[in-house]
């Protein structure tokens, strides 16, 4: 009995000591607050949800030496909601940095507020203007069209040997930016664009566009469309018996897009992207994909991985001593970080991602393989 009491006391003492040590360590941890302000509802909910998941996963995993807190706020579809969410977050806490909306219009509205509050915005938004406005508080962890569209065009011309592309793009700001970069890249590569047409997001029937594109006698179909329209076009092309290769925009790499099509319909279809987590490539990437699946019951995409890497880079910077938002901004702007998707480094304007991949489907599964990698495409790293 006496021995038992001593044993219990020893265990309690050891436990108390461990708890005290942990508390002391926790007390020494650097505090960091990261509002996650992303569109979870509305027309960008798919991409916004992936962005949220990536941020949440990184913040939940955390990093030694940093006690991170976060709160997710839905920014919906309007700039006012995003700005209000940011103002609310800034008024409640000493914010370290913000995981900020993938929706460029919301980013443009949030940027002056962030600059005034001197808080970094970490985003995967593709809107080119974000990093062209001289705002030092914006950091983009997804390759811009200047990277991915060049990679897409180079793959078509250099790897597939195609010189007569037909381009189908979206008439939104996203689509027009991609189209402009594709045209410039093809011209530089000596390819002649034989047909181009813009589609509004609510277009249902793809046969008119396909018919006119095929009438121009292209040797490859190049898409720069949102998820649903990409799948509609691929399905229509396959139903039409078209055997031309299709090289699509990053929407086609998203597992949710591939899920809309039968594996056979995906044969010969490729896509550009910043990364493709489900394609694997390293044990760390496989672990990320598996953790993501377990946590969110969904497949990860490049947006999720980009935001994950962004938060990991911020946490690492804080752990290394960037205790204030200004110190974090300085660290993000000047250091290189090796993430899961690629190595990130600012080009001086906040563009951190400079690599792209081309993924292709084999017609037997919905998991693409990486067909080509393009590193440091814009020469900024």
């Amino acid at each position, binding site marked *: 009995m006496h021995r038992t009491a001593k044993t219990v006391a020893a265990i309690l003492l050891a436990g108390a000591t461990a708890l005290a040590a942990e508390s002391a360590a926790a007390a020494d941890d650097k505090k960091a607050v990261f509002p996650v302000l992303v569109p979870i*509802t509305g027309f960008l909910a*798919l991409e916004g949800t992936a962005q949220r998941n990536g941020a949440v996963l990184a913040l939940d995993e955390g990093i030694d030496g940093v006690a991170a807190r976060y709160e997710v706020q839905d920014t919906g579809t309007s700039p006012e909601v995003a700005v209000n969410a940011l103002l609310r977050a800034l008024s409640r806490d000493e914010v370290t940095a913000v995981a900020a909306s993938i929706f460029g219009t919301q980013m443009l509205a949030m940027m002056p507020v962030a600059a005034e509050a001197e808080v970094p915005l970490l985003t995967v938004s593709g809107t080119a203007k974000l990093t062209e406005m001289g705002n030092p508080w914006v950091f983009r962890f997804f390759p811009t069209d200047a990277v991915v569209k060049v990679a897409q065009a180079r793959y078509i011309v250099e790897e597939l040997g195609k010189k007569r592309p037909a381009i189908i793009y979206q*008439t939104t700001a996203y689509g027009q930016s991609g189209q402009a970069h594709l045209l410039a890249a093809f011209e530089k590569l000596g390819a002649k664009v034989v047909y181009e047409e*813009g589609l*509004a997001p*609510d277009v249902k*029937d793809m*046969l008119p566009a396909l018919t006119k594109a095929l009438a121009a006698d292209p040797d490859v179909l190049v898409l720069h469309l949102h998820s649903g329209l990409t799948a509609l076009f691929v399905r229509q092309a396959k139903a039409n018996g078209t055997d031309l290769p299709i090289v699509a925009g990053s929407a086609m790499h998203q597992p949710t897009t591939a899920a809309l099509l039968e594996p056979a319909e995906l044969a010969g279809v490729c896509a550009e992207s910043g990364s493709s987590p489900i394609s694997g490539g390293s044990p760390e990437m496989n672990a990320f994909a598996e953790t993501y699946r377990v946590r969110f019951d969904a497949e990860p995409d490049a947006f999720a991985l980009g935001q994950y890497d962004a938060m990991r880079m911020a946490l690492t910077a804080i752990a290394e001593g960037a205790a204030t938002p200004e110190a974090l901004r300085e660290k993000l702007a000047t250091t290189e970080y090796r993430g899961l998707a690629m190595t990130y480094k600012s080009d001086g304007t906040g563009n951190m991602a400079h690599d792209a991949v081309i993924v292709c489907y084999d017609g037997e599964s919905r998991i693409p393989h990486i067909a080509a990698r393009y590193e440091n495409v814009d020469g900024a790293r």
Partner: protein
Amino acid sequence: MDGTVLLQLLLNALSLGAAYGLVALGFALVIGATGAVNFAQGDLVMAGGLLTVALASLLPVDGLLLLPLVVLAMAGLGLLVCALAYLPFRNAPPVSVFVSTIAVGILLQNGANGLFGAAPRAGPPLLSGGEVGFGGLVLDRQSLAVIVAAVLLAGGTWLLLHRSQIGRRMRATAQDPEMARAMGVNTTRTIALTFALATALAGAAGLLLSNRYFVTPVEGTNLMLKAYIAVVVGGWGRIGGALAGAMLVAGFEVIVSSVLSYPVAEAGLYICVLLLLLLRPQGVFGEALGRRV
């Protein structure tokens, strides 16, 4: 453009028009019965599409077999929409119903987003199988199936309205609710049935569209716009006009975009609607109600 492509384009236009027609038909039914615009109609189509996706995951069968289930469930939802978004506001200014149906639409969108996520989803095909031969031409079986299903549903609706006691009550309530009430028609019940029928048609349209064009939680707004245009073109509150208007809208979209371009087709459609409102505001086939709001 060879014959097969031309025929497939026409078939696509008919197929799209048939699905739009069911949306517009439900929309026009509610206008007829209440004089109010149900701005949730597009979102109800989306709800029907996602319900189809959910049912298909439990019962992996052709869409045709799921159609009765979807129609029944959506009719129930229609009764709920009527109870929540119309009846409490029936004596209030019409703008109250606009706002309440917009609110229902937003609730449906966000509810769908929460339940299903934002990704596009594909429903099951109406009938399995890819293509069918027709006079030496190979045509898409789904397009044909959608047209046949939509025609049967629209025909069934016409029979219900014109050959049944319930239909006569619905039409009486639509034409003159006060007189119908004086003649002993329970107008509240009749209006609730109209909502149920309109929502069932929206559900059927959602099922028909979900395989060929996919479905997302934010799909409803565009469909609502197409239904609104179809009703304006066909004549405000005119049931047959709504169907014809939907066919004209889909035909215009597909044909003009084939010959010119999608942006021209879209701009042209709205210019035509503006001209129609200017030159013949009662629509191509005339206005049934004469109480446009």
